[in-house]
């Protein structure tokens, strides 16, 4: 069985389980929308302050909603000891990581896609003109975020303070990704073109490659310990 098929099987299972319960997406989405709405109360729509703060607010919503999703995605593996069932199958355990990570990327991207229009309306910031650039930023940042998040949620899930442990472990490591994502988003929202964000995109791409490779390799050891 080739690696891609195994990744797709793990992904299929996660998508099917979420399609049945919708508990992960609904909680992530509600949280992201609440963040955007609450911050909207403090800024005059379209004001300079709102436009300046908007990228940060957007990524606060995405990352904290993402943590909720990452936590829940692995909780499902712990119920009934399913993670052990996965570990007993004759597959490269790194592929379990890739399948779970891909599922997390999809869930977080869905939240981003739904949150963005509401954010644009409430903050009165133009997103349509830069939609292509925003899509690339969102995709690259989400991959980096989900890669480390998937690994760390596997670590945190076996600790007593799992809800606190995941963000404490995750955010310091994600600083380069979030920093690049916020700055690139700010550049796009202020109407700048591809050349203005290419540096940030390269940073995101490099961190994505590093994070995915390191997490893929170390996932097996994390599971066994």
């Amino acid at each position, binding site marked *: 069985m080739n690696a891609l098929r195994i990744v797709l099987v793990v992904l299929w*299972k996660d998508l099917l389980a979420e399609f049945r319960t919708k508990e992960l997406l609904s909680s992530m989405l509600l949280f992201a929308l609440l963040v955007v709405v609450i911050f909207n109360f403090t800024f005059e729509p379209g004001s300079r302050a709102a436009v300046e703060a908007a990228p940060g607010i957007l990524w606060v919503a995405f990352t904290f909603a993402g943590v909720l999703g990452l936590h829940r995605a692995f909780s499902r593996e712990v119920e009934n*000891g399913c993670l*052990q069932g996965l570990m*007993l199958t*004759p597959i490269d355990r790194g592929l379990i990581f890739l399948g779970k990570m891909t599922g997390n990327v999809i869930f977080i991207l869905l939240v981003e896609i739904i949150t963005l229009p509401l954010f644009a309306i409430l903050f009165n910031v133009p997103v349509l003109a830069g939609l292509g650039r925003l899509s690339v930023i969102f995709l690259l940042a989400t991959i980096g975020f989900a890669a480390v998040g998937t690994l760390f949620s596997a670590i945190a899930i076996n600790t007593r303070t799992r809800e606190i442990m995941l963000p404490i472990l995750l955010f310091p490591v994600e600083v380069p990704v979030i920093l690049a994502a916020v700055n690139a988003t700010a550049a796009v929202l202020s109407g700048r073109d591809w050349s203005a964000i290419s540096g940030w995109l390269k940073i995101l791409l490099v961190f994505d490659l590093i994070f995915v490779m390191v997490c893929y390799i170390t996932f097996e050891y994390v599971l*066994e310990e």
Partner: protein
Amino acid sequence: MTPDSSPAVAAVNLTKAFGTHYALRGVSLQVARNEVTAIFGPNGAGKTTFLRIVSGLSRPSSGEVLFNGNSLHENPEAARTHIGVIGHQSFLYNELTAAENLTFYGKLYGLIDLPSRIKKVLEEVGLASRAGDRVAGFSRGMLQRLAIARAMLHDPNILFLDEPFTGLDQHAATMLSSWLRRLRSEQRTILLVTHDLEQGMSLADRIVIFVRGQIVFDQPTSGMNAEQFRRAYFEHVAGQQGDAT
């Protein structure tokens, strides 16, 4: 030792430490092909830790596990194709149906002709009529039967059973017991961890007792009756319930 003459499972000098605390202290155990070995011991004796290590769920601090003479560490994926595990938990996803759970695991095992295989194992455990029902609605007994179907899906020749009778009602326990007897007659290698002395004694060819992370008793069941074993168990275990997990 050639692979053909080698034991089905061999644990060689296994040690497992959690910080300064030792759960296993140099445990060596060879399980011959087609042998049913029952492992007993008080809580915290290291039985589950041992089973986790030999099934590849955990790494030993030192020592080695061999399957048919091949190192588990060097070729874990090949070894896992031969292993089936039934534990305290079902390893099943509540959100999926019985058939979907088996399809998921079957695909990860790379099984061919999966639908007919799933149909067969579900019929064997008496759950064919519940194939399309979500696992979340299953009773403990049904979950354990489905867990058996999951463990047998890839037709493993080595089975690890960690207290499989825990939490089962009388009907489910009887069904599990008869299933284990059938497996025994099918010449599979079975390593069974249990607290139930009579149950284990009646199923096993050999009995091993763990106390404080070490093997303190290892004998075949032939020539030993239940009372003799009970006496031996309490002699070894009394006053030694200790610090291993």
